[in-house]
């Protein structure tokens, strides 16, 4: 039987990769997918814990997180389309109007 801590370490690694993606990428779409990856890593940890404690409450929370991720993806992609229409680029280094 695989101990739950193995799943937690996998979730931590996936979360770290998502963080690296958010930090290093310059493509707005890839940045969004890195955020989705971080959400999924948190979901994996929740499911591992709900298995460890033998409660399905974690599954319900994961379901709600999936719903919120879908809503976030819809709004975020609409924003990307809007920004691209205005600036003709999705390179986040170019969006420096509000940079101090």
């Amino acid at each position, binding site marked *: 039987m695989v101990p739950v801590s193995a799943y937690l370490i996998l979730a931590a*690694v996936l979360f770290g990769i998502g963080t690296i*993606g958010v930090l290093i990428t310059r*493509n707005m779409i*890839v940045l969004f997918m890195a955020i989705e990856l971080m959400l999924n890593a948190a979901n994996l940890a929740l499911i591992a814990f709900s298995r460890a404690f033998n409660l399905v*409450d974690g599954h319900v929370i994961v379901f709600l997180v999936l719903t919120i991720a*879908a809503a976030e993806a819809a*709004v975020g992609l609409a924003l990307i*389309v809007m920004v691209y229409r205005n*600036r003709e680029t999705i390179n986040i280094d170019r969006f420096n109007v509000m940079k101090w």
Partner: protein
Amino acid sequence: MSLDWIIFIASAVVAVFGATMMIAQRNPVASVLYMILSLVAQAVCYVQLGALFLGAILVVVYAGAIMVLFLFVIMLLNLKGTEDLGAPPPPVGQFTKYVFAVLLIMELAFIVKAAPFAGIVTGVVETEPDDFGSVRAVAERMFTDYLYPFELTGVLLLIAVVGAVVIARKRRPVDTGDREGGGVE
């Protein structure tokens, strides 16, 4: 080594590989495909942990619907390869980012190792109920104890749909002279 371990290591390697390639690719379409690979491998982990319903949901909704939404947006934007990614940023900044990310991973692993719940997480409860993680078990909890958050989720989705349509809608030329956001520069 038991079969459980073999399945876990295989799916974990595929999940990490897919995630790494996802952030390393320059072509966003390849990025999306690697993300789908990673998600399917994570769904295997879900099933291994007894979350059958959520594993199916992850593949159908996430790897299916949301990633297709990403592909649609990429198609809509009609990006031409890597041409507008500009010059690479200075290496010092990149180095700092990598150091920060590695520190974060080490910190998370340390938390897992040192947390006071270590006794719980190392020994899995062997006797799980028959329907643990099934549609019935999840739905029973969702429609009793978590009914109110569930209903609020419906409102949230409605707001998100309306908001996405309003944001992405093409402005009428009535916005005099400022068509296509000419004043942004």
